[in-house]
């Protein structure tokens, strides 16, 4: 009986999954290549991405294993994944020296489709780790709607082992997102297409 009570008490400890809050999510983008101040600033409009059918609910972004019994618990995002990605892309474009503009007044329009935006956990005997996967297509068009550049982007990230990986879920997912966005600006073909 005592064991059962203790099991319920300890089992229920930490039984809530983390949530992805609205706001600035990726702490620090490392964008090396930028539009120099002497160059004309290109105005970019980042549209909300669509989601592929593998994403049934864009507010559900993962599966946490909570409590002593590792109960499955949905990780939810206040904003849908399309908006999360669009907002972070805007920040990255600003850091890379672009201007953010409206659709009719921008030089380029960025859109795409998200196929995967997910974090869950590897459960080991003693240790666990969080594993995140971010996969999307990004398409850049000019103001006339002509294709300028496009790429399938994928980044996966696994956190270090710890006793409770749940706390690492959101940071690991954001790390995968950050790396995925940085990879756009590391791609020479992107810059060649933009400056053409």
């Amino acid at each position, binding site marked *: 009986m005592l064991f059962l009570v203790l099991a319920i008490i300890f089992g229920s400890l930490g039984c809530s999954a983390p949530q992805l809050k609205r706001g600035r999510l990726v702490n620090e983008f490392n964008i090396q290549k930028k539009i120099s101040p002497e160059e004309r600033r290109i105005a970019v409009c980042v549209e909300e991405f669509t989601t*592929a*059918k*593998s994403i049934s609910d864009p507010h559900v972004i993962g599966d946490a294993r909570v409590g002593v019994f590792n109960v499955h618990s949905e990780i939810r995002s206040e904003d849908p994944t399309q908006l999360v990605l669009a907002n972070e892309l805007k920040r990255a474009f600003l850091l890379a020296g672009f201007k953010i503009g409206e659709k009719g007044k921008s030089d380029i329009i960025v859109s795409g489709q998200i*196929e*995967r935006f*997910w974090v869950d956990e*590897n*459960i*080991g*005997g003693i240790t666990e780790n969080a*594993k995140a*996967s971010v996969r999307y*297509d990004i*398409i850049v068009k000019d103001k006339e709607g*002509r*294709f300028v550049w*496009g*790429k*399938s982007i*994928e980044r*996966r990230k696994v956190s270090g082992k710890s006793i409770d990986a749940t706390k690492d879920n959101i940071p690991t997912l954001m790390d995968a997102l950050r790396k995925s966005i940085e990879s756009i600006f590391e791609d020479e073909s992107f810059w060649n297409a933009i400056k053409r």
Partner: protein
Amino acid sequence: MVSFKSAWMIGALLGFYILTIIGCATSYKPPNNVQTLQERLSQRVDTEITASCQGLKFYLIPLLDEKITKPNLGIVPKDFDMFPVFLRIENISQHPIKVDLQNSFIVTGEERNRSMIVEEVVERIGKNDPQAAVGLGVAFGLLGGIAGATVGVAVGSIIDSSTVGSKTIEEYYHNNSFKPTLINSSLSGSGIVFYDVPKDRMSYDQFILSFPILNLITNEVTTAEISFKAKDAVRPREEKK
């Protein structure tokens, strides 16, 4: 002077060392990239399934035979109601394309069988048959397999604990899945695509693989269909008639 105990230990160590060398020498090394995988699979087929239309070249290898799938995928896919296909698409047109694999399917008889994303494939293997997932490790290398299997069984998280060389099973499947799906002009995408096909539907003679392709310049969607027969599936050469 070497004591009996020390001699025994040295002997045991030597024996283990020799067994390790034999094990490593005889174990099947998993392909370390998609290109190697394709080369290995290509060596097994007499007739290549190829097609081309609108500036795209398709190259297809259906993977049904367990003697091929076991060493390369670690599983017998039909035991998991899955039909894997190795697909390569070369974009020799002047426009970029998007291969919409999520809306792709295989027709068996009159049934359409949807495609699966790689995470779903890995999850199905892990959930439905942990022992088979352990087999993934075992199939790829004696020592790595046993180590992976032992850890996997112990923690009940086999897929992620088994290793293929230095990679986890999940990474291995990710690395060999079809990519990229957005293919720019003069580039290609290749890898394995899994379809959710119940075992009883795999006995058909004729299959049709279908996937929408979006022309990113004109936004026009066309559907590519490749028809193939079960006998075209990869099998060990000696079994071919």
